[in-house]
């Protein structure tokens, strides 16, 4: 190798090394980029646009609309009793749904955690509601509550829960329970599957050691099962809470938010404003408030988590 050739060779080697290093660094982006682009286009951009609608008068039926109106929508919603009602309902809806889904799901998971003949079949049957599309679940339960074709009004009357055999869904005070029950029916399998998976990951040795040490079943449940489940439970519940708070389908189908907006939750209210009144501006304003509440919830969780972690 002459003294002149060597620098050229070295540059060629360096260039090849540079390209290979760049290609290696770019690899992960190539795999993830298509998804990212799609998400930005279909979800991020509309999100930003949606936020701007909250400050504009945007009505689909009125081609002249679109002016900037500042905080007008927010003042409107502050004075809107339907909005506050929807807010209250969102809390009721979320708390009731999550509590029942989780509690019953846990019981089901515990039942399925024991080996018994026919377990596979039973598992398939109890998880079936989850496969049912939510709109169908909503319709199905709406029909069950309908005294014309459904048995529930008669049974509820027979049990003394209702005075007469009418449709639960037409009573403004109690109508929300219709969708809640449908939601619980539909949602138990999800919790049951998650909790069952977590239960099955608890090593058997620990139970055996505890049994040898003299711990009875209730003690074993409290001291072994619950602590092991706690992390999975916590995360699942928190994520599910957000998801359920946003879940408007059942209410839209079963009651359309009625009677008289009494079963609206925030997300169904947003939908009916957008879909029925075609008032995108107002709908977006309510949506902005919902988003802010969810963010506050998420941040409260982070703070709580940090506090708990510092404590332990």
């Amino acid at each position: 190798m002459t003294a002149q050739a060597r620098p050229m060779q070295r540059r060629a080697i360096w260039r090849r090394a540079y390209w290979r290093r760049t290609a290696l660094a770019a690899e992960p982006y190539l795999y993830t980029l298509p998804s990212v682009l799609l998400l930005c286009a279909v979800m991020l951009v509309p999100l930003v646009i949606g936020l701007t609608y909250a400050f504009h008068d945007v009505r689909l039926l009125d081609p002249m609309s679109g002016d900037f109106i500042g905080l007008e929508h927010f003042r409107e919603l502050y004075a809107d009793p339907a909005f506050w009602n929807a807010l209250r309902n969102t809390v009721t809806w979320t708390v009731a749904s999550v509590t029942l889904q989780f509690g019953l799901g846990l019981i089901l998971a515990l039942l399925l955690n024991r080996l018994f003949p026919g377990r596979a079949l039973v598992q398939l049957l109890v998880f079936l509601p989850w496969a049912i599309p939510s709109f169908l679940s909503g319709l199905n339960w709406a029909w069950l509550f309908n005294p014309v074709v459904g048995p529930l009004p008669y049974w509820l009357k027979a049990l003394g829960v209702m005075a007469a055999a009418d449709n639960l869904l037409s009573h403004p005070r109690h109508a929300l329970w219709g969708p809640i029950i449908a939601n619980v029916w539909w949602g138990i399998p999800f919790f049951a599957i998650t909790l069952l998976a977590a239960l099955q990951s608890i090593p058997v040795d620990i139970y055996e050691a505890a049994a040898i040490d003299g711990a009875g079943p209730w003690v074993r449940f409290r001291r072994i099962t619950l602590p092991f489940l706690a992390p999975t439970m916590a995360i699942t519940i928190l994520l599910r809470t957000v998801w359920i708070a946003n879940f408007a389908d059942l209410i839209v189908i079963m009651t359309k938010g009625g009677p008289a907006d009494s079963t609206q939750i925030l997300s169904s209210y947003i939908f009916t404003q957008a879909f029925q009144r075609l008032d995108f501006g107002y709908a977006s304003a309510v949506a902005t408030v919902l988003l802010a509440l969810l963010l506050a919830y998420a941040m409260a969780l982070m703070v709580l988590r940090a506090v708990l972690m510092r404590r332990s």
Partner: protein
Amino acid sequence: MELHGKWSWALHYFLLAVFVIFALFPLFWLLKVSITPNDLLYGEGVRLWPSRSTFEHYASVIAHSQFPLFFRNSVIVAATTAIFSTLLATAAGYGFSRFQFRGKYWIVGLMLVTQMFPLVMIIAPIFRLLKPLGLTNSLTGLVIVYTAFNVPFASFLMQSFFDAIPKDLEEAAMLDGANRFAAFRRIIVPLTLPGLAATLGFVFTAAWSELLFALMLNSSSATSTFPVGLLAFVSKFSVDFGQMMAAGVLALLPVCIFFVFIQRYLVQGLTAGAVKG
């Protein structure tokens, strides 16, 4: 967990029976009304099984209504969404599983955020964005929107399946003479067939059941999907319960069949995802 004693087993089976009945009763009722002839519908309302059964409701739904069209639309949208979502999610999931890179937390964060905010928020902007592009009243528009909605969850699902495959296998393949993409295609992907099946199933089910966006973006019955069609049918013929229930049973069939086959993998998938938190 070992519980002893006959009483505990009796309680166990009793509670299970309650759950099974609770789970199956609504579906049973749906079936029951769908085969009850119209003349018995209102009289025998609360009986557990009609005195006479008939398939006339199914016949009308299939032959005389637009349900076959709605069904077809839903199948097309759900299947296409499932395929595209799974393709994108496989790539993204692999990226998350095998690489540590600077943008990773941002991208994962983006995906998590999209799962958290209320989708109703963007229903209006998406409508206004898709309308000038001619993608409202269109199956294509729905597929695009649904794919975006499902990609994050599908990606995390695929990631957990990829995580279960040891990295040695790609390394062995890369030494054998494959570049990473070839190793991915020929070695890793064939090993995640259960994961692919689970993801396809999840996305298909999610797309099949989606209501609000289908309702919003669609005003023509030619491009209605099943949920929209069923809902319109319900409000139009609010008295013909027999036919509605028959339509409902028909709507159930694809997802139930899917579910029976992939139930095992669904549990596996959620296990992998959920236990990881």
